[in-house]
């Protein structure tokens, strides 16, 4: 059985705002499936005594003191922006989307 369906690929493409053609859906579904199957092999050797790992280094509590450090100038900050207006990043309108919080 395939590890990822054509519908799931279409869903991910939509979330990523990628315009994927019907043909490409077939191609990517096949390619992603190979990747997922390969990764799934790791799961087969993982025994109950090996906890899932999200971080490769055994560290906790890496924190910084609450001390102000220099910022970029607005010119520097905006230098890589495709478009600028009123010292702000100018982006195309976004409709039917919601802010995170």
């Amino acid at each position, binding site marked *: 059985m395939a590890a990822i369906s054509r519908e799931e690929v279409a869903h991910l493409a939509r979330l990523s705002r990628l315009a994927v053609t019907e043909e490409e859906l077939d191609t990517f579904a096949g390619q992603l499936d190979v990747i997922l199957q390969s990764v799934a092999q790791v799961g087969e050797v993982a025994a109950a005594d090996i906890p899932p790992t999200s*971080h490769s280094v055994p560290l*906790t509590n890496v924190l910084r003191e609450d001390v102000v450090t220099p910022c970029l100038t607005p010119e520097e900050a905006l230098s890589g922006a495709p478009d600028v207006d009123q010292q702000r*990043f100018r982006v195309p309108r976004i409709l039917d989307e919601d*802010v995170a*919080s």
Partner: protein
Amino acid sequence: MTTTLPAYDEVVARYEPVIGLETHVELGTNTKMFCGCPTDFGGEPNTRVCPVCLGLPGSLPVANKAAIEATIRIGLALNCSIAEWCRFARKNYFYPDMPKDFQISQYDEPLCFDGYLDVEVGGELVRIGIERVHLEEDTGKTLHVGGATGRIHGATESLVDYNRAGIPLVEIVTKPVPGTGALAPEVARAYVTELRDVLRTLGVSDVRMEEGSLRCDVNTSLNLPGEEWGTRTETKNVNSLRSVERAVRSEMLRQASVLDAGGKITQETRHFHEDTGDTTPGRSKETATDYRYFPEPDLVPLAPDPAWVAELKAALPELPRLHRRRLQEQWGLSDLDMQSVLNAGAVELIEATVAAGATPAAARKWWLGELSRRANETGVELADVGATPEQVAELQGLVDAGKLNDKLARTVLEGVVAGEGSPTEVMTNRNLEVVSDTGALTAAVDEAIAANPDVADKIRSGKVAAAGALVGAVMKTTRGQADAKTVRELILERLGAQG
């Protein structure tokens, strides 16, 4: 769409509301959550940004210790358990208010969980369960342009300022609160008020709703008695304590009218409108974003040392409800009297006035009397009425010293509120001090006696009650600046009558 809404008491007679509140608090740290950019409000656009909060390639976030500490203290104040180990998570979404295209938040491992906050509503204690308290970063501010109204619909483009992006934001989520019936809107408001006071007491945020450092989303549902909880809606954009109450009430009325007509409630986000007091639909959950949370690989897990947490717990300040109870006892107030102090927003003001030397009774008299009246008239908060606790204490000191009588003190207070200076300065500049010079008073008394010979005769013959007319005459010539009791004694003495 215009529909006639049912009456509120009919709605609560038929349906049972369940409410839930999600509150976001911007922490008052010096720097952002994951970088050293400053957090102060305002500032020119994109002047408080760096490679980390702009999400530039190769930059790495490091968590702010002060923000972690503040969040743990909030959790402890809300009677939460503190996670022994937890992680940050990436919340992925497509919107330009975060330059990284994701927000660092917490998902299934919040820093604090399973607590409660007791709030008082109409003399009754209501326990609000706290589901979780987690830490995330605030988003940037978008300005929609090209449309007529500055709102997103009709806009052709958005301009983004990332000064706010990355400011530590604490999200506090309640458990669902059933069983409050008709009081649901008041309970919602009381909870946010109490939470705000707790956060202020902890000193972790400036909790200004109008500046957005405290923001609130309100969940509301209705169900028939004995039946399962109804479908809930989430109302956003609720930006004042009063709006919290209005938003719950308005949503209860709207949902009841839908249910009464045999309709179904759609699970959706709605937006509250301050001007009309009602809500309109926002994003429907049908198109709800799939956030694809996963553990943030750029930040190592948090494992707060239990000894540190115990230290923070031991050092918590006295929380508002206990503080108020202690003050009530100290001031010797009944529940009802304390309630009127609370309603007037005068607790801290009276406390500070007492600290500045006034008696609790005198402090309460000024703040709840003259100053409350003035605040109501001018439509400002009591704290912004124009007099400070120190000035009120000074004013009362002048009364106690016999330099001002009650009427003069009120005139002096007017001057203080008008910005004419301290009570002593106003008294001196306006020449309002009580006339204590006996020579001047005696002259005024003699003048009054001479001008009213028939009254004087009555008093001489023993009708001392008639002295009132002469006292009035003396007060008139001294422009109210004499002590009435002293004047009366003086009149009786001059006429050889017995008081």
